[in-house]
């Protein structure tokens, strides 16, 4: 597969995953928790869930998928407008990778403070 084709493909795959993950996220955060339903939401209940390694894996994947989709989407919009030359695109790529990396690191580090 070719490079830009990969980028395009991943955008579609992450888009598809985001539909599932967002729905799940929304459901879990707002409806699923037993305490929530009983009107008795506590810090401990939330902590218990986000300390679960399986939940952590899902959240980290969610983060990375959302970051790729969002940042690549931003890049697509910028490229569509065609204001950048080749060098500009290279700078943009680096900038977006950096933003993504810092953001992902920041998100992942949040779990380490638990």
């Amino acid at each position: 597969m070719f490079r830009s084709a990969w980028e395009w493909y991943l955008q579609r795959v992450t888009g598809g995953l985001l539909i599932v993950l967002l729905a799940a996220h929304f459901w879990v955060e707002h409806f699923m928790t037993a305490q929530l339903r009983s009107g008795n939401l506590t810090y401990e209940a939330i902590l218990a869930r986000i300390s679960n390694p399986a939940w952590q894996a899902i959240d980290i994947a969610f983060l990375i998928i959302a970051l790729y989709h969002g940042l690549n989407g931003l890049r697509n919009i910028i490229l569509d407008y065609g204001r950048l030359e080749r060098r500009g695109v290279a700078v943009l790529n680096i900038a977006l990778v950096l933003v993504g990396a810092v953001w992902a690191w920041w998100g992942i580090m949040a779990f380490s403070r638990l």
Partner: protein
Amino acid sequence: MELNITLRVSRHPARNGKAFDEFQVKLEEKMSVLDALFRVQREQDSSLGFRCSCRVGMCGTCAVYVNRIPRLACSTLVKSLESDVVTIEPLPHYPIVKDVAVSLEPFFEQWRRAKPAFRPRNPDSAELARIPKDSKYRLLTPTKRDCITCGACFAACSIVGMNDHYLGPAAINKAFLRILDPRDAAREERVKILDRSLDGVWRCHTQFNCTAACPRNIDVTDSIVRIKRALLWPGRLLKP
């Protein structure tokens, strides 16, 4: 019954401070938009600037905006527009030469970047290549090779409108034809050009404007989508 239509023609540079001139033209049954322009030129205003050559839809030089849709002036009957006022403007996305005649230079700049010329595998062969009946080139390209480079798709494409780098529909269709051609030797190079993120096929939003605008009814979007698919699964299209 005698029917007149109003021809609103865009003027560039503006004449007497007006960006449009209006002419009354007697409507005739088989009158094309090009006929109407000729009528004005001969009877009312000889300074009108427009372009045509073959006048039967083969040369692709008379494309103009007719009521905001890119069309070949020679192949559009005025009657079919079902409008008392026919507005003729130059195609968008091109520099204007005079009135409704544009320079197709931006179109051909992209066309050139798509490497349109054939790169023969067997330039010295004294035989005509055998192209089997089930060859993809034979099956998929006959109508697509009828592109007359009129520039209508380039005018209709919204991505072209905002992105000066984008190769545009016709140039991609051209590259598609060469890529499919079993006699062409530059497939790798062509594919790489089309995969470029800045100006290649991935900028296309599949809006079908090019297909809708093509006066030769070429499904240009189909060519672009096939290229995208081929870039994703090279085996499907690019196997000789």
